[in-house]
């Protein structure tokens, strides 16, 4: 329908999550009308991001160095790990200002229909951190949906026998949603009200 070059942009934009055919078309025509330097700035930003950004060797957060800013921050409490699905969940949790430990990014959640099992996630890397960093508590902050809950249960069963205290962020988050949609206050409370799933000292009833 359109010149090949335009159609190509529409097709590429249409492949992005949340962009339907109409939106893709609108964006493409907007770009067509805008000054050439705008388009260059956008393509440069994307290329630059792809060139410079990598994943942290330890926690798999996005990083520009081998170790991310959080992993290399000596003020972070050692031995306390918060497990999340995606790097964007770290951003959400950091906004609460209520967490002083470090993170571990799984890269998703167990979801057989998407071909994702424990082997496709950074699970063995997580296990490897237990001894290496003398971890005492793991907070499971996977999303409060079916896949996130199943992943948390799987990890709790795996980590429990290692003697690590395993906790799960409290419910009260938008159920079925993603962490990134939760506001700071709700997320902060969920973190504070986490409950024990496995391991840890038997004498204690609660978390703190």
């Amino acid at each position, binding site marked *: 329908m359109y010149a090949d070059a335009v159609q190509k942009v529409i097709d590429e934009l249409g492949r992005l*999550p*949340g962009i*339907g*055919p*109409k*939106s893709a078309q609108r964006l493409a025509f907007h770009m067509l009308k805008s000054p050439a330097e705008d388009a260059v700035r956008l393509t440069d930003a994307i290329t630059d991001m792809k060139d410079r950004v990598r994943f942290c060797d330890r926690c798999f957060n996005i990083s520009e160095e081998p170790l991310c800013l959080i992993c290399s921050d000596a003020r972070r409490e050692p031995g306390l790990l918060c497990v999340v699905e995606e790097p964007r969940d770290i951003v959400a949790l950091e906004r609460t200002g209520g967490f002083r430990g470090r993170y571990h990014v799984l890269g998703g959640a*167990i*979801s*057989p*229909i998407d*071909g994702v*099992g*424990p*082997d496709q996630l950074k699970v063995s890397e997580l296990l490897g951190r237990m001894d290496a960093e003398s971890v005492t508590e793991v907070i499971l902050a996977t999303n409060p949906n*079916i*896949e996130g*809950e*199943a992943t948390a*249960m*799987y990890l709790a*069963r*795996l980590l429990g026998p290692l003697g690590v205290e395993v906790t799960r962020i409290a419910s009260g988050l*938008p*159920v*079925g*949603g993603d962490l990134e*949609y939760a506001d700071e206050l709700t997320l902060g409370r969920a973190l504070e009200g986490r409950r024990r799933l496995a391991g840890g000292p038997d004498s204690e009833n609660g978390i703190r």
Partner: protein
Amino acid sequence: MLVQRLWLNDFRNYTSVELSLSDGVTAVVGDNGQGKTNLVEAIAWLARGSSFRGATADSMVRGGCDGAVIRAEVVDGQRTTLLEAELVASGRNRLQVNRNRVQRQSDFIGHVRATVFGPDDLVLVKGGPAERRRFLDDLLVDMQPSNHRLRSDLERILRQRNGLLRQAGGRATPEVLSTLDVWDAKLCEVGEELAARRVALLAELEPAAGDLVNLLSDGRSALNMAYESAWLEVGLAESLVGSRSDDLRRGTTTVGPHRDEVGLSVDGMPARSHASQGEQRSLAVALRLAGHGVVTSHTGSDPVIMLDDVFSELDPRRATSLISLLPDTQTVVTTAGDLPEGVVVDQRVHVHDGVVST
């Protein structure tokens, strides 16, 4: 509970619709294929968060559009609520209550409740077990919106568990078994709860439907509704252990609430095979009406009644009985022709090729 106003954008064959609904009976008149049922579907979507015809979001969005919008002003007692749903062809639907975005579908769907009588209701009696399970689960959602989550969780867990079983290809490796354990635990959590709620609902439905069947047909007969489940007695956890090797071999979950059935029998004989077509129709209507009654008693107000092209399927005597049994509440009736005697219409709406006129 009343749906006062309804707006549609790019929904099915409607580009744009704005409609005020009577709090009595609204007749939606038009030839077949003009979009009458689409109006019913839109209102029912607000109640269930899914199409009563089983359609995907994609097929409810008008061709070439990114999304469809269903908007309704709903009055319940003193409270007026504005509901807005944007169905996105691919991706997450956007839901708003009084202009506030809601994340949970169960926070959205409690505001409208609907009882839909359709021309295909005979499947409640003649169709497979899935039809009757759906009937029960729809009612559970109407009674308590949070049941929506129970139901969608069960579907999701089963999809995941079956996905895992298929990938395993019959080989029970340690990795498969350890993740299967997790899905089993999830399935038990949700499945036991849903089945318990179905059983409780059935206990309420059975006497009500039994009385209604007698009012709709000649003579008296005894209706029996039994929840038939292969696992309920021993428990789901144990049943899943017992069926695991079978499940692995067949690549699907062979036991659970998704395989349960509601056995309908009249005077001790299965209604599906032994009742006449007329009796089966009476039974289907009785089930819908009984469900409406149970929802009304649980929520304290009548759901909107929608009769979608039902009179073409009922003989005049049954049609008259149905009309006399309908509660006096907001009702939407669609028809291609005349309505039977006894239907007092307060408002008439004409539908032609996706255009609504009053």
